[in-house]
């Protein structure tokens, strides 16, 4: 839809109207930094999400290493108490909000449109805005390090310890406001992807023929859509308490600090599934490909994912078993927590049975996926011990729980993400990652993570609480295998883990210097994203595919021999590609880049900066946001025609343009 109508050319104008709104011209650069900064292409944004998230992963990893250095020996002196508290707060915040979530958003951005056979997401500019809001929010969060100290209340930021008296630096303000900004990014992203998945699937792709990764991402987006508003409310209460003298958590004024805990965990528990489900999706893509078999029990995996999405809303108080809820609430939440273990178990069983009687090809991607099955199971089972509420009152807030969620999040989410790296790298960059280095990467990471987090089970069960900037020998017990020993092992393990991640970065560096060009279909893959070039063209597909099966790409390549029940190849990927190119659409209309998403996103941290320092700065930020919003609304819908192939309406190929936000 063209937003700006041209005046009828009754009076010949000397100045053509498209150039009149000079500031509202759309950028057209296809190369150079402008092509990235102003891009609305879901693939470029996906890569930028991934790269930025990786950067924050390193930041959060360094924070983790400092924590482990401090705790390697009793009475550690690497960090002081204040700095340590900031470190573990920001480690968690960075890993959750600035690494796993945006990394998943990166994968989703890149692959969901490809997997459903679309040319872009539903709202490309909103997509770009989401990325920039995430980036600026992340930078804003970390700015606090240089402006008087980062947040020091733990990522859970329990009231009243987060109040102005108990945390006098500006760290918590930066934290609360920074998360508001990244929350806006998540919300816009969620809305965008939900609409994309619901409206823009290729012809023939019913919901139950959708790739499982897209399914899991969809569930995650619904979780975000409902969870982010809750944390937004909580963060508003916190900010108002700190910056405007409100008393939502002030006990002397009659408030109840448990309000924060409920709000936080109503968001926080679905958030756990936001972190893990994308990796479940990745693994559910990788295992079938390298087992040469479809996912075992596809509908069960889909519905167990959806079930997790629903039941995930009813378990939040299991984070609060020790906070004095009363036996009835504890019993109910104990039961629901056990209930959510069932659909999770279903996934483990289905993955194992997917490999069963397959033809297993142990690539690095496959190794990471199998690693996830085993290690996530460990985390899941320790989770079940937490569901037993009386037992949880002994284990909660000890290292046992640190072990539990690191097995879930590192053994689960992160291994899944690395599996995705190795699986999709050739698709995204057209180069193969080195498998040998990949093997090193995998084993170093798996050994490192078991060395780091395995001993934490023992530390926790033997009574070492978490969030302590020092531990004392007086409580470490006796014998060779005392807590001092296990603390040291965990610290050594963390460095092995770091070397493992370094190996990945080296792998990336080496393979980008001496690239091994990726073949068209390196893994003999199954889903639509492989039915295009590596990397995909800007418009993704020369022809929007028509889908007949789950795993349609595989079924285009293979057919079952009716007599022997064996699969035989009937076409190669190259042949499919060549056919596509022969029938390529000539009238593909892609959305133009835009200046405004980044300008609008930039206004947000300016506003929040002003909330902390001077409300005048907020006014400036508000003006920037307003300015950008009007620019966004008023800019011409496309760059001038001369930059595009001609757009013939009615061919069905201007679909993307008509879905243009």
């Amino acid at each position, binding site marked *: 839809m063209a937003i700006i109508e041209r005046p009828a050319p009754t009076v010949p104008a000397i100045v053509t109207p498209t150039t009149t709104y000079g500031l509202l011209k759309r950028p057209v650069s296809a190369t150079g930094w402008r092509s990235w900064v102003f891009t609305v292409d879901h693939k470029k944004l996906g890569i930028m999400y991934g790269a930025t998230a990786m950067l924050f992963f390193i930041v959060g990893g360094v924070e983790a290493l400092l924590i482990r250095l401090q705790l390697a020996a009793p009475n550690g002196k690497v960090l002081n108490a204040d700095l340590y508290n900031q470190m573990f707060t920001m480690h968690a915040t960075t890993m959750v909000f600035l690494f796993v979530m945006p990394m998943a958003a990166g994968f989703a951005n890149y692959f969901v449109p490809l997997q459903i056979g679309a040319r872009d997401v539903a709202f490309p500019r909103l997509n770009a805005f989401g990325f920039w809001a995430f980036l600026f929010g992340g930078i804003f969060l970390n700015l606090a390090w240089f402006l008087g100290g980062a947040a020091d*209340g733990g990522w859970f930021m329990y009231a009243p310890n987060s109040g102005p008296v108990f945390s006098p630096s500006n760290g918590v303000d930066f934290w609360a406001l920074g998360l508001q900004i990244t929350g806006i990014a998540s919300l816009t992203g969620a809305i965008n992807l939900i609409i994309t998945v619901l409206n823009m699937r290729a012809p023939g792709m019913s919901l139950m023929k959708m790739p499982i990764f897209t399914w899991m991402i969809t569930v995650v987006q619904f979780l975000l859509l409902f969870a982010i508003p809750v944390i937004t409310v909580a963060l508003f209460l916190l900010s108002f308490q700190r910056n405007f003298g409100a008393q939502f958590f002030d006990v002397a004024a009659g408030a109840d600090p448990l309000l924060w805990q409920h709000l936080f965990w109503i968001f926080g528990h679905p958030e756990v599934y936001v972190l893990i489900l994308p990796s479940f999706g990745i693994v559910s893509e990788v295992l079938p490909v390298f087992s040469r078999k479809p996912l075992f029990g596809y509908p069960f995996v889909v519905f167990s994912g959806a079930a997790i999405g629903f039941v995930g809303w009813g378990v939040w108080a299991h984070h609060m078993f020790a906070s004095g809820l009363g036996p009835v609430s504890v019993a109910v939440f*104990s039961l629901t927590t056990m209930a959510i273990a*069932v659909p999770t178990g279903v996934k483990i069983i289905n993955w194992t049975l997917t490999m069963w009687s397959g033809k297993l090809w142990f690539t690095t991607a496959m190794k990471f996926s199998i690693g996830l099955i085993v290690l996530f199971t460990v985390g899941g089972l320790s989770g079940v011990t937490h569901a037993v509420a009386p037992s949880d009152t002994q284990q909660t807030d000890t290292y046992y729980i640190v072990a539990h969620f690191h097995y879930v999040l590192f053994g689960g989410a992160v291994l899944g993400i690395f599996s995705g790296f190795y699986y999709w790298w050739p698709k995204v960059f057209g180069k193969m990652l080195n498998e040998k280095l990949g093997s090193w990467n995998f084993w170093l990471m798996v050994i490192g993570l078991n060395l780091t987090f395995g001993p934490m089970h*023992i530390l926790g069960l033997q009574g070492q609480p978490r969030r*302590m900037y020092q531990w004392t020998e007086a409580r470490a017990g006796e014998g060779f295998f*005392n807590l001092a020993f296990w603390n040291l092992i965990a610290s050594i393990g963390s460095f092995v883990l770091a070397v493992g991640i370094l190996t990945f970065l080296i792998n990336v560096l080496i393979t980008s210097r001496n690239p091994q060009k990726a073949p068209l279909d390196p893994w003999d893959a199954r889903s639509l994203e492989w039915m295009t070039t590596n990397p995909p063209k800007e418009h993704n597909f020369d022809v929007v595919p028509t889908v007949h099966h789950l795993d349609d790409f595989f079924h285009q390549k293979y057919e079952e021999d009716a007599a022997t029940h064996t*699969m035989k190849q009937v076409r190669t990927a190259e042949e499919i590609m060549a056919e596509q190119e022969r029938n390529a659409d000539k009238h593909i209309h892609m959305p133009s880049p835009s200046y405004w998403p980044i300008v609008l996103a930039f206004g947000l941290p300016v506003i929040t900066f002003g909330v902390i320092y001077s409300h005048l700065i907020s006014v400036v930020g508000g003006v920037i946001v307003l300015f950008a919003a009007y620019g966004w609304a008023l800019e011409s819908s496309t760059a001038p025609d001369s930059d595009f192939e001609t757009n013939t309406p009615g061919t069905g190929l201007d679909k993307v343009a008509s879905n243009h936000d």
Partner: protein
Amino acid sequence: MSRRQFDIRLSATIASVRVVLRKASKFAGAAGISAVVAGCATNAPQDTWQPKGPNSKLIDDLQQPVFAVAGIIGLIVAVAVVYTMIKYRDRGQPIPEQTHGKPALEITLTIIPALILAVVSVFTFGAIFKLAKTDDTEMIINVTGQQWWWEYDYPVQNEFGITQPIISSGQLVMPVGTKVLLRETSRDVIHSYWIPALNGKRDAVPGRIHTLRLEADEPGIYAGQCTEFCGLSHANMRMEAVALSKEDFAKWVANQQAPYVAPAKDTLAKQGEEVFLNQCVRCHQVNGLTRADGTPAIAAPDENVWSGAAPNLSHLMSRNTFAGAMFNLLSKQCRDEVWNAPSDVVGAKYLAGVTEECLNQKDLRAWLRNAPEVKPMYANPADLAVSNGKYRGMPYLALSEDDINKLVAYLITLK
């Protein structure tokens, strides 16, 4: 491979695995637990697997089978995955049949874990409600958390000889074999009270009263630690529960209710009392202490400390710790003697209190010299604008070495 073949192979394998597992599970459960136990510290003071009272035993009896079941399931998954990896690795076999799953198998494998969890939940429910029981309580103690120490006050309970309220901090003293109900609250942020050997943890939330039942089977000292993140010195907020036999407890109560004994005239301790009256009494109360003019010295911590209280130091030397149980009042040797004493003499040793030769002079002096240096606290006068100039923790008092000598001499008299 056809679907039938697949079924047969699967069920055959499951059967064989089942036989192996049945044999292995007993062994694995025992071996797994003993392996874990062997890899653990001995005598870790906060070990959650060493219950010393009925409440923690109830938890332990529940969690041990759960851990064992979880371990076995984990093992089954790991074995199944490894077995699959070896058996179905690519040996040039043809691309398998594209089966999409078997609903009957799926449903079975969904119901089995659900049933296991249903059984677990029945026992969990029982334990939750048993642990929450308070109506047969025999004794109550009010527990108040504050950054970064715990206050214990014993309301008047004549059956235990408590005829006037007792207030203490650092160590919770309780009689054995008595169902003690802690009524927890907090003066500032959320803390959590946890003596692993006696029960699970319970948060102390400002504005609320949460209850936690403790009961110790045998006399002894049980360590604990604040487990809800409570700010700067969270790591240094420790606690110790001292269980005494009923007779020893009566002695302890009698000592706590004994009147204040002023130090003799012209002693160093008397001068120390002077210093205490000038400096310490602003926040710290010593019951029965009077000023020179005979008026009682009432502390006013509410005017100096944000949370409105500071530890009551009456009978300080009957405790073994100070500064939120971060430091020992006893020297290491004396402390080990008390901690390692067998349960029949631990009471007597504890009641001996801190003698001159056992006093941990080093830490006590360091504390008096500059408290914020040895325990991180918000006590720098320059940073207190946000709390209206009130401290959170003990500030630097600029005491001279001479004053410190006097104070130590005085404090040792607070038996």
